[in-house]
């Protein structure tokens, strides 16, 4: 009962944080993705033609939505938890009877909330440019949520190890963004030479984007079961690792 109060407190605090600064957290993705849809989908897409039997605009919508979910669920947790360490109000949690799992669920829950809210905003904007019909709601919603959870957890681990503000921007800039762009947001991996197709299969984001694409427009380069297994496996590993880090006090205790 007490843990549920603490969990609600952390969640409410996290949601209040990113909604209070909405011009920094919610507005930019709306503008950026509108430009993606306009430039890539409308201006260039009309000349590209069909990919796997669907229009280019429809093809890129799932990837752009999921890219927003990935970057914002990650960014929310990494910046919030690192600020908590930097300003030392992590000590408020350490001195309180808050179990480690509550800290983890509270902070990642905040990231999931922001990732899903931003994803929903981008999805709403996409309806202005595209008139696709959702093909499989359960698959689309499940992968939407799981992706937000996975990258919120990754952001948490990044924040635990971060010692400076530089450390919280390295992974998003040099790992997440390239992997997202190379994960088939704007193209089908089947368009790549054989060797690069094999290389692309090592990119976990490819599986999430394709599973989400399958849910939205019924098209995928990879098997859906494999996508869920990989995402679930990553989530489980990151949850266990995060709890171990909290138990050992890595990055938060002397």
């Amino acid at each position, binding site marked *: 009962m007490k843990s549920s*109060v*603490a969990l609600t*407190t952390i969640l409410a605090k996290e949601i209040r944080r990113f909604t209070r600064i909405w011009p920094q957290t919610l507005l930019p993705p709306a503008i950026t993705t509108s430009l993606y849809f306009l430039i890539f989908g409308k201006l260039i897409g009309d000349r590209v033609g069909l990919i796997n039997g669907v229009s280019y605009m429809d093809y890129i919508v799932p990837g752009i939505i999921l890219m927003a979910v990935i970057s914002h669920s990650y960014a929310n947790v990494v910046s919030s938890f690192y600020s*908590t360490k930097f*300003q030392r*109000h992590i000590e*408020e949690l350490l001195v*309180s*009877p808050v179990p480690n799992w509550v800290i983890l669920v509270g902070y990642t829950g905040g990231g999931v909330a922001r990732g899903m809210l931003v994803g929903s905003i981008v999805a709403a904007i996409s309806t202005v440019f595209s008139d696709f019909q959702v093909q499989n709601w359960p698959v689309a919603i499940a992968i939407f949520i799981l992706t937000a959870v996975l990258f919120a957890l990754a952001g948490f681990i990044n924040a635990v190890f971060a010692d400076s503000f530089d450390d919280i921007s390295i992974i998003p800039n040099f790992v997440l963004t390239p992997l997202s762009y190379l994960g088939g947001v704007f193209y089908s991996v089947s368009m790549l030479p054989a060797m690069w197709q094999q290389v692309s299969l090592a990119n976990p984001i490819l599986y999430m984007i394709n599973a989400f694409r399958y849910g939205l427009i019924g098209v995928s380069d990879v098997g859906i079961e494999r996508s869920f297994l990989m995402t679930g496996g990553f989530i489980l590993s990151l949850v266990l690792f995060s709890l171990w880090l909290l138990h050992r006090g890595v990055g938060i205790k002397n």
Partner: protein
Amino acid sequence: MTALCIENLKKTYKNGFEALKGIDLTVKQGDFFALLGPNGAGKSTTIGIVSSMVTKSSGRVRIFEYDLDKQTNQAKNCIGLVPQEINFNQFETVRNIVITQAGYHGIPRKEAKIRADRCLKQMDLWELRDRVSRRLSGGMKRRVMIARAMVHAPRLLILDEPTAGVDIEIRHAMWEMMREVNRQGTTIILTTHYLEEAESLCRNIAIINHGKIVENSDMLSLLDRINKEYFVLNLTKPLKTVPDIADFSMELTEPRLLTVAVPKHRTLNDLFQRLSAAGIEVSSLKNKSNRLEQLFMDIVR
């Protein structure tokens, strides 16, 4: 009942620095306890371990009979901590900081609001409740930390240099508040560099130096060990030489300022009688330094 029981507590940091070398400490319920020591002596490490912010190397800590390793949450719920440095969210309002802390202790929001408002009024922060905390003065920020530490009604309140950097008026108001909290039954552990603060507030005292407890007794017994007290006398007429009065060592700081060491077996009456006999008139006097300060310097030197 003991509020805090520390047994053979050791802490060695990763860089090899041995901050605590096996300390034992007991604080009784209801006590107002001073934990003193020079910078780097191990005070903050001890408090950090007790409040779960620092991982101990070995030893045992019990808070109101709850083992900190085995009954962690019960033990933590007994503690309220006012740390040395400001550690709340500087972008949050005063009221939200206190309500959030109550939530961490499992107090439902409705009850948390009532408690937070009560603590803010007690700390004279009610008018500032909706102000963003970074816009507060240093003294106000310290009071916010006390209100935050009090919101779950802890049985043991740990104050780590709570009056550092605050003006005299606020310091005295905080002393009165601490006395009142202690009178209401809360055990208080205070660390401070203002030794007159410890002398004025605390009943028992421990002095830690180089990671070891070098003194642990009640305040009166400790002060009773002082062999000499130093007074500075203002004279009505200037002197050219230091007067020679048996049993009292003297030093002429300025022609009208005489510093006198009064041994424990002598009284001020003896001193004044002899000064009068020597034709020296005194217009006023003051202590050269705080009594506890002299003793502290002797112990840690």
